[in-house]
């Protein structure tokens, strides 16, 4: 592994009087790019190189957003950026045993693990690998050299930047990430699990990229975990592009579980061809600041998308879900459901945009955002936004903000159930319809377990591995393991 001479670390002492710190961050990143652009672009196709340049220029021109930006009104991105950060141009060593770090036995859930450490692909199967089912996966670094035509045809085609600073920055500076290719007709029998771990003894700012392609008639379920295991601040800026071919079937479970000091900016772009079926479930358990930009474009007739999310935040955590569903073709359906429980001074934003193109007749789009605020100090800003240019469509939206049902509380307590257990039961019940949309049994029970732990105020982790995501202590016969309540 090469040294870290090209890694820049931005310290508070570098802050000048005239500029705010994140302007320093901007200029330092810009300088880093200009100085090391050849190294950053190593292995790029010419098309990728020019894409990089285009996005670099856009980032240089616009920089980071601040709270005056309409899309960032309710999310304090400035605080997340006003930190000391290291921005690595080469993979850093970890003192920990890598295999131990990512070893993750989940009861009744066989997954194939793709590990990413501090943004760098790391797998014992080598940089590119074809598994038993015929699914090809590996590092973006290796894949762009092995499949230049594929990259030219897809990479950067969904993640249109320029208006999105973080996509600009990512496309300009990203060096690694995960590539997954599911050939025509291939049905992956096992869930692939990307585990992204942040483990540095310094604060890091990480750019990370995923390119996922499902060819016609293929099938893949993917779990994407963002975790941190120490208490240093990290800011992860990730861009994921997913191409879902004709009649292909894709499930994406995102688990967001970082420490309170950390930030995550998740940009996910999915395009769907005719007859395809997509389900995304974004499960936000813990993080200082999370921004999820999720865009699903239904580009062929008969495509269906379920876009789901659950967020359980407390303390001063913040989650911002910006969801865009684009009905670009006729006869498509989408179902959007985001539910959240906010405690303490936690804040959340939900912005649900549905676009129906002029000829997208017979569209059926449903959107719902439901929130429970446990304390008067918790806050949610929820905004539906529908833009419809076709006349034969069904679109509905709803948003609710409430407290736990007091009638239900008394009913439970009148049966001898304590106040705290009654609260748990009702909160869990509220979350259940998102959890029940998880199709993989083993995964469902794990998520179930994590939600219960989260609601009990324990971290959503277990004790077995470093990742602590292991086996439930025993089989569950009932919805809740009551001995744990």
């Amino acid at each position, binding site marked *: 592994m090469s040294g870290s001479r090209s890694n820049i670390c931005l310290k508070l002492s570098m802050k000048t009087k005239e500029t705010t710190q994140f302007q320093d961050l901007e200029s330092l990143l810009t300088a880093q790019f200009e100085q090391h652009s050849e190294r950053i672009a190593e292995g790029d196709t010419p098309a990728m190189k020019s894409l990089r340049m285009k996005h670099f220029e856009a980032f240089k021109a616009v920089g980071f957003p601040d709270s005056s930006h309409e899309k960032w009104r309710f999310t304090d991105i400035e605080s997340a950026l006003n930190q000391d950060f290291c921005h690595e141009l080469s993979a850093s060593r970890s003192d920990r045993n890598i295999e131990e770090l990512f070893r993750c036995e989940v009861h009744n859930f066989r997954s194939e693990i793709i590990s990413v450490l501090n943004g760098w692909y790391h797998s014992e199967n080598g940089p590119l690998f074809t598994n038993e089912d015929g699914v090809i996966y590996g590092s973006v670094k290796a894949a762009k050299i092995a499949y230049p035509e594929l990259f030219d045809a897809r990479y950067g085609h969904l993640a249109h930047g320029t208006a999105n600073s973080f996509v600009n920055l990512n496309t300009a500076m990203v060096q690694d990430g995960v590539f997954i290719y599911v050939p025509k007709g291939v049905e992956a029998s096992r869930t692939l699990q990307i585990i992204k771990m942040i483990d540095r003894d310094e604060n890091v700012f990480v750019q990370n990229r995923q390119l996922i392609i499902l060819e016609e008639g293929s099938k893949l379920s993917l779990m994407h975990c963002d975790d941190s295991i120490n208490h240093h601040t990290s800011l992860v800026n990730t861009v994921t592009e997913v191409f879902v071919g004709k009649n292909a079937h894709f499930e994406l479970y995102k688990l967001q579980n970082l420490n309170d000091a950390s930030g995550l900016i998740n940009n996910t772009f999915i395009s769907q061809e005719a007859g395809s079926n997509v389900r995304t479930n974004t499960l936000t358990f813990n993080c200082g600041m999370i921004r999820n930009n999720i865009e699903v474009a239904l580009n062929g007739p008969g495509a269906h998308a379920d876009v789901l999310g659950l967020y359980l935040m407390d303390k001063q955590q913040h989650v911002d879900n910006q969801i865009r569903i684009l009905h670009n073709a006729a006869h498509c359906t989408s179902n959007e459901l985001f539910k959240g429980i906010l405690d303490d001074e936690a804040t959340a934003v939900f912005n649900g945009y549905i676009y129906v193109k002029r000829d997208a007749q017979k569209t059926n789009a449903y959107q719902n955002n439901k929130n429970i605020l446990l304390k008067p100090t918790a806050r949610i800003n929820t905004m539906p936004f529908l833009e419809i240019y076709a006349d034969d469509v069904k679109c509905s939206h709803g948003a609710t903000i409430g407290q736990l049902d*007091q009638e239900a509380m*008394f009913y439970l307590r*009148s049966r001898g159930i304590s106040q705290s257990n009654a609260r748990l039961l009702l909160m869990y019940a509220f979350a259940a319809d998102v959890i029940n949309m998880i199709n993989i049994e083993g995964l469902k029970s794990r998520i179930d377990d994590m939600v219960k732990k989260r609601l009990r105020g324990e971290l959503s982790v277990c004790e077995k591995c470093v990742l602590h995501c292991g086996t439930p202590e025993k089989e569950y016969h*009932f919805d809740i393991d009551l001995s744990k309540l």
Partner: protein
Amino acid sequence: MLLNIKNLHVEIDGKEIIKGLNLGVNQGEVHAIMGPNGTGKSTLAAAITGREGYEITAGEIWFKGTNIVDMEPDERANLGIFLSFQYPVEIPGVSMTNFMRTAINAKREYQGLPPVPAGEFLKMMEEKKNLVEIHSKLTNRSVNEGFSGGEKKRNEIFQMAMLEPSLAILDETDSGLDIDALKVVAKGVNQLKSGENAFVIITHYQRLLDYIVPDFVHVLFDGKIVKTGGKNLALELEAKGYEWIKEQHLFEA
């Protein structure tokens, strides 16, 4: 005495609803509380079970030798008080099985017992379901969600059978029930009746009392019990209405 209510006064939002009520219930007894609407019948049930918003401004409620007026609702339940709700609450997302298991284990914990083993619990569910002729499909669903009026009331009796309270208060259990459902509910109650427990049946009409025969009938009027008699008092009320009670009470006052 199992339940002994002395000079009870209850307010809701500063308005006095129960105005000095006395009631004594022994083990093995069935008491019916009747009276016109708005006289405090449901308020009495709420005060005994500890519902929030019902302020006890004076008086005592003794249950098993303890004055329970300051106890939390769940503690009263674990001590052996059960309320069959007039309007059972739908709780989407909480399965009947999980709900009952949580409740049973709460009671066992209160009694210093370990949680009920899964097998034993399921066996118990099966037995009690048969008692009130409740279908398995109902217990597999969320609590009361999508249940018909009759199913909800039968579900109340099912929960009562599971929790085996010493004192069961049935608040207008007959309202919204057709005669067949009424018979099923009454049959369930009669099978659960023993020398150890007691029932307080709050009802507007006499017809439930055809099937669950009371030892005492009390007439509640203007926040007080104004008349007490045997089961024939219920028949008399059915025949004559409540007017004569009102007149008599107002006359005496």
